[in-house]
């Protein structure tokens, strides 16, 4: 029997991986088909990996119709073929990456606990149980890990705050409401290595004395839902979740909850409201969720990538982790390269890669073959960067210095056909669609902003409308209650600043 791997990741499925897998099963006697997550090399999905003496030899992209020919040419022996990529881990896309959080994604069967253990799984949890609560929190503080969801708040500080609260019920809430366009790292982790998220949550529970965790998953991720549900059940069965985690007499269990299509629920207080079964309207801070969070109890709210990185920090040690990265951005960041690029996918590296290196060295330039004119970093609330800023390193402070933000690490490229006025209008419209309605600057400002930008596009009072947009942005920035209204001006202002020509000389009626 020859072991052949085909991904069941949603991105691979969207490119036809299921049909490829079925064709392999139908055509190849002697195949042991295994399913993995995606390695994030989406430009070569569906990827077929054959276990050979040389390692896992990959072919890609393999459409279902390519399978019979490949089998004839000796696919199962790893034979030569135009689609042959060689041993996958020696591929240049991976050799320059530093995969810590994503070390197992694409390599293992996501729901095989033995696979997880063989690849270093639960080492972090064992260490946390050995060193105990306070030392675990300190380890995370020392690692310099900051929240990968977008806000980049130091994870260890959050945990310390929860630990300091008076005795009583505490919660761990995993924010899996990955709504930013251009991002898919949470999804890849949940589908490709769900036990790492679960392990991170258990460690957080051990660290701050929480016995219950919730995962708030967006409804747009049905595949992640299935994998997580199965993984939670498997972890419970194996004694990693429940009344007695690994015989430690510490209790911890996880409940998976589904969102219902509201972008705002990725904002932590809105997510807590939603978890409690209410409208996802944001809460005024203070109190912080770490003091008064889910059901009024102290709550650690962390993103999927953050939690899945915690086991690495514990297993390898804080120093080993903080040795990656630069300045105040320590460790690695899974960058998601998306939109109009030739080679899109996931690149995990120590902080510091420049936008240009990501776009061209990894991405190979635009998919359309036209010049890349703009990139949006950090989702729909992130700034647009012009080509002159492409040498900025992808790290928190360097991006903040140019009025941009790294957010959740999504980088979306646009070629020179993009109309930046249209993108600015869309940013306001998206904010209007997704505003929770609680505060006026966001609720009204976004509607009026979209309207004014529409008028500019039609050549109606452009100067007055541009001034109005600038004023609305200012109000939203400074007076909104949360990041939605408070950051929606970023894409608008950056578009106006760097691509001003797109906002002028619009002909009436166009």
């Amino acid at each position: 029997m020859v072991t052949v791997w085909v991904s069941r990741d949603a991105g691979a499925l969207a490119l036809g991986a299921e049909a490829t897998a079925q064709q392999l099963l139908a055509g190849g006697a002697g195949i042991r088909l295994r399913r993995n997550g995606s390695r994030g090399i989406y430009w070569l999905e569906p990827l077929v990996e054959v276990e050979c003496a040389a390692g896992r030899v990959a072919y890609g992209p393999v459409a279902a119709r390519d399978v019979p020919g490949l089998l004839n040419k000796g696919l199962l022996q790893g034979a030569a073929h135009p689609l042959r990529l060689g041993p996958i881990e020696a591929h240049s896309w991976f050799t320059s990456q530093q995969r810590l959080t994503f070390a197992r994604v694409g390599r293992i069967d996501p729901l095989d606990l033995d696979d997880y253990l063989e690849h270093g799984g639960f080492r972090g949890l064992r260490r946390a149980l050995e060193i105990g609560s306070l030392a675990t929190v300190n380890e995370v503080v020392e690692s310099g890990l900051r929240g990968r969801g977008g806000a980049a708040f130091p994870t260890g500080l959050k945990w310390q705050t929860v630990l300091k609260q008076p005795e009583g019920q505490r919660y761990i809430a995993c924010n899996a409401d990955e709504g930013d366009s251009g991002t898919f790292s949470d999804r890849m982790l949940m589908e490709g290595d769900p036990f790492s998220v679960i392990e991170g949550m258990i460690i957080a529970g051990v660290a701050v004395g929480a016995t219950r965790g919730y995962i708030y998953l967006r409804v747009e991720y049905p595949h992640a839902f299935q994998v997580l549900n199965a993984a939670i059940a498997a972890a419970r069965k194996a004694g990693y979740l429940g009344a007695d985690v690994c015989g430690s007499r510490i209790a911890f269990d996880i409940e998976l909850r589904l969102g219902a299509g509201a972008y705002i629920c990725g904002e932590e207080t809105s997510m807590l409201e939603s978890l409690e079964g209410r409208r996802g309207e944001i809460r005024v801070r203070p109190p912080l969720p770490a003091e008064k969070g889910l059901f009024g109890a102290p709550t650690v709210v962390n993103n999927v990538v953050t939690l899945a990185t915690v086991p690495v920090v514990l297993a390898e040690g804080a120093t080993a982790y903080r040795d990656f990265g630069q300045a105040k951005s320590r460790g690695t960041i899974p960058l998601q390269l998306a939109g109009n690029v030739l080679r899109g996918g996931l690149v995990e590296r120590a902080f510091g890669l420049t936008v240009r290196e990501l776009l061209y060295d990894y991405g190979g330039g635009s998919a359309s073959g036209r010049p890349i004119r703009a990139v949006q970093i950090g989702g729909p609330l992130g700034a647009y960067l012009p080509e002159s800023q492409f040498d900025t390193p992808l790290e928190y402070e360097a991006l903040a210095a140019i009025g941009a933000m790294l957010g959740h690490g999504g980088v979306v490229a646009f070629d020179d056909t993009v109309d930046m006025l249209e993108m600015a209008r869309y940013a306001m419209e998206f904010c209007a669609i997704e505003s929770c309605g609680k505060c006026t600057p966001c609720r009204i400002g976004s509607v009026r902003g979209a309207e004014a930008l529409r008028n500019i596009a039609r050549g109606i009072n452009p100067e007055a409308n541009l001034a109005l947009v600038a004023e609305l942005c200012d109000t939203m920035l400074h007076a909104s209650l949360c990041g939605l209204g408070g950051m929606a001006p970023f894409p608008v202002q950056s578009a106006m600043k760097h691509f001003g020509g797109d906002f002028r000389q619009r002909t009436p009626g166009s």
Partner: protein
Amino acid sequence: MKQSAAPKPLSQAQHDEILAIVARHGKQAGPLIEILHEVQRSLGCVPAEAVPVIANALNLSRAEVHGVVTFYHYFRGAPHGRQVVRLCRAEACQSMNGVALAKHAMKRLGIGFGETTPDGAVTLEAVYCLGLCACSPAAMIDQELFGRLTPERLDELIRRDNEKVST
């Protein structure tokens, strides 16, 4: 949420089903959204008539339940068409001709986003990111995902599934 045009009372079976769903979530903390998901899975939507039943069973006001149902884009007041095309309209997909694809879909189906064709065959919905941004433009058609969509491919997928339904 889209309101059903002609409200009709719940059947006894639907009524009982809703109460059974609420009872199943009895021990859960903050269960309302979980209950709404299950009601929608079971009845195909969350009909307005279900709101007082759920409110009563959970000891909430009708306004509270109505407020939650209408806050979330995913909950619908009327069942969708036989096929649901959820087209991503977010930035990454826009950068790869997503806007043209959306216009094509509306023209091809003769409906706007959030609408269902008069024969009840297809519902067209906007979605803001499916996490398939490295293979834009993307869509979820029923439960199946598609990346690098073209207008031609979208036509095939719509036609294929409609034929499947009509045979």
